[in-house]
């Protein structure tokens, strides 16, 4: 659907935009948000957006529309992210096993996340909680982070995530489950208290 454009000239420019301009205009915010969630910081996210659109422009003539444009761009961004992180950090990929998250004591079972009946928005007024969540996601091995970001943060279906990551739905669900267990353990082990919640109540993201 076309946005409301006031002048006829603006409408003309909007409709006459080249395919690459339209692709950028319609999807840059989506891809930046995804890139920021994957990279965890602004400059790397911008680099990833640029790399994504450069690759997309090159592949645009071959795009046949079998997938949604957004799915196609998420796929390009995900692959570019893998290449860029490999270059920068040479980070080893390691597997997460379910067993490593099994609580071994009653105390561990009962570790809590300091939400205390607050809505997520209210809970995020706690700067420490925001940072703990971001750091936990950043610490996840890449393939688990991607599954969590695409499914829980971008809100895609397991099937779409599978298409993007090149794996079946079962693998997506398995990675997502381990990623959630990892983040839950990181958050609850930080010992953030509700006192911190009140103390940093004025800080908003």
């Amino acid at each position, binding site marked *: 659907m076309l946005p409301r454009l006031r002048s006829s000239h603006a409408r003309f420019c909007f409709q006459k935009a080249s395919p690459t301009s339209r692709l950028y205009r319609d999807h840059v915010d989506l891809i930046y948000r995804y890139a920021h969630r994957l990279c965890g910081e602004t400059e790397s996210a911008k680099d990833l957006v*640029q790399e994504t659109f450069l690759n997309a422009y090159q592949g645009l003539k071959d795009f046949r529309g079998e997938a949604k444009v957004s799915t196609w761009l998420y796929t390009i961004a995900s692959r570019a992210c893998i290449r860029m992180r490999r270059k920068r950090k040479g980070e080893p990929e390691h597997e997460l096993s379910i067993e490593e998250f*099994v609580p071994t004591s009653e105390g561990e079972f009962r570790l*809590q996340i300091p*939400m205390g009946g607050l809505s997520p928005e209210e809970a*995020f007024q706690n700067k420490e*909680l925001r940072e703990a969540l971001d750091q936990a996601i950043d610490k996840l091995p890449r393939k688990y982070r991607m599954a969590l970001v695409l499914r829980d*943060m971008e809100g895609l279906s397991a099937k779409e995530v599978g298409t993007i990551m090149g794996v079946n739905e079962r693998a997506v*669900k398995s990675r*997502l489950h381990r990623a959630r267990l990892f983040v839950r353990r990181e958050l609850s082990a930080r010992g953030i208290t509700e006192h911190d919640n009140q103390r940093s109540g004025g800080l908003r993201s």
Partner: protein
Amino acid sequence: MNKKKTATPKKRSKSLSHDHTHSEGRCMDLFRQLSAYIDDELPADICEEIRRHLGACPNCEVFIASFMQTVTLCRHRSAPELTSVDRMKMRRAILTAANAR
């Protein structure tokens, strides 16, 4: 020729609890199925078994609460937005790089 796909019944996972004893095995079964449970991917009878187990196992009940809170926080974590200036600068940089390739 492509075969038409037929719906297959969901595989039954191991029963969680019938006798309401809380051996490690039953808690482990729940532990493995937590995501499927909160994503509503399990058959109704398994969900019912899980609810029964949760009602009788305080450790699992507390654990699943913190697990669900984790997922809720992830789903609501906002990401920063691009400014219109950044959007324009990046577009220019992409076009320059595309012409150089």
